[in-house]
């Protein structure tokens, strides 16, 4: 082969390959907008600017987004974004689901995880200012206002206290197990208390987080990134009764949440197996093990400390 022919092949091959790639497009489309989010204009304008390209059916594709292999990457982002939540079908979700997602969204924004830095690098207009964040915070706070001296909560707590017998020793009953294999931990009341938290978001509640001996030692030694194998965290959640003088009093028991560190079994979710047991009957949350991924996705906001939210503040 002559040198000039060889040089031609060297130049032509990538061009031919690149041209060939263009025949394999993901075919990204924008399905109809059927149930768009209903929110104040100040909020929707922020969402449209920063979120809609991946989390709606109104994705704006620039020419460079439609050139393979970039188009494959963009398509994957859009499909993932729409599968998490879609502002074009938003009103098909229940109000509880909507509020949960909106608080999660604000937290992902505050944590700098959303909009994706790789996205804002190409679309600087999507970056959120402090004013934008203040608008989003005010919006979510307005969705979950405090109900002072909530008589329904007071009545439920009194009823549960009377029927369940507060602090009664646990009766022997089968230990419930979540669909991912994480079992309820009946002995947690003797464990070390790690923290207590009060939530004023869509999940108004007061909580106590317990850790087994491995987890407690890890917190004391500040070796929690990552948490050691065998760490078990149990969070007990009670409803609250809020009073105008600032008192937050515990209401009825709501649920127990568990995190178990087992890298071998739960490698796909940061090494954590999650579980939630609802009500005094401790009904496991999640019909299939897939719920573990949803827990993990939300806990990504706390990835700096290996996905654990409720660490006491440092001194």
């Amino acid at each position: 082969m002559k040198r000039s022919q060889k040089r031609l092949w060297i130049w032509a091959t990538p061009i031919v390959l690149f041209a060939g790639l263009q025949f394999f497009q993901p075919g990204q489309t924008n399905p109809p907008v059927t149930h768009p989010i209903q929110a104040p204009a100040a909020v929707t304008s922020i969402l449209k600017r920063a979120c809609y390209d991946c989390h709606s059916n109104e994705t704006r594709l620039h020419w460079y987004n439609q050139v393979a292999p970039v188009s494959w990457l963009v398509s994957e982002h859009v499909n993932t974004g729409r599968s998490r939540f879609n502002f074009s079908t938003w009103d098909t979700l229940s109000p509880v689901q909507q509020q949960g997602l909106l608080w999660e969204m604000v937290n992902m924004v505050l944590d700098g995880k959303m909009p994706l830095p790789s996205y804002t690098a190409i679309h600087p207009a999507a970056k959120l200012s402090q004013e934008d964040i203040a608008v989003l915070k005010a919006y979510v706070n307005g969705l979950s206002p405090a109900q002072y001296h909530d008589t329904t909560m007071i009545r439920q707590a009194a009823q549960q206290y009377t029927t369940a017998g507060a602090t009664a020793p646990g009766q022997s009953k089968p230990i419930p197990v979540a669909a991912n294999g994480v079992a309820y931990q009946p002995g947690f009341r003797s464990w070390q208390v790690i923290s207590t938290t009060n939530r004023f978001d869509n999940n108004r509640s007061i909580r106590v987080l317990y850790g087994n001996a491995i987890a407690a030692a890890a917190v004391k030694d500040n070796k929690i990134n990552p948490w050691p194998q065998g760490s078990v965290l149990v969070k007990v959640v009670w409803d609250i009764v809020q009073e105008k003088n600032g008192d937050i009093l515990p209401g009825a028991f709501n649920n127990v949440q568990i995190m178990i560190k087992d890298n071998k079994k739960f490698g796909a979710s940061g090494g954590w197996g999650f579980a939630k047991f609802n009500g005094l009957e401790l009904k496991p949350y999640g019909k299939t093990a897939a719920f573990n991924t949803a827990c993990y996705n939300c806990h990504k906001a706390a990835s700096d400390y290996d996905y654990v939210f409720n660490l006491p503040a440092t001194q």
Partner: protein
Amino acid sequence: MRKIILALLVSTTTAGCVPGPQPQHRTLFDAGGMQVISVFANRTDKTLSILYGDSAALIAARSEYRQSDKEGQLTLVTYHQADNRFWYGSLVNGAIKSVEHIGITPEAGATPAFAYRLSQGQPTADASGHMINADERVRQILAHRPVVFP
């Protein structure tokens, strides 16, 4: 070349002066085998509190402290409240603000006797700033009904 070596030397020396990450300390209260009886907070005072009790106090709590067959011990740990850096919408405990104790002594045919002791922090004041006496403080603490556990 000389400039490069100089720049490297300067950057190495400067980096040596930058303080490393501060050691992080988190308060874990050693309840000495006692268990949680109740948990509560106050948004105005910016506090979060956990009431612990030993086995006798756990039993006494079920009668709202009207009966007790054995000597018991309650401990109330009050923490300063802090923003949860990982979740806007959540407040978490920080440093301990105070630790208070109530000794429970059975009294034949009568309500148990209660002995109050403050082992850490300042005495509690009311909304107008006046110190609350021990009897009143005991009454306030015992008014916290036990939480229901599964």
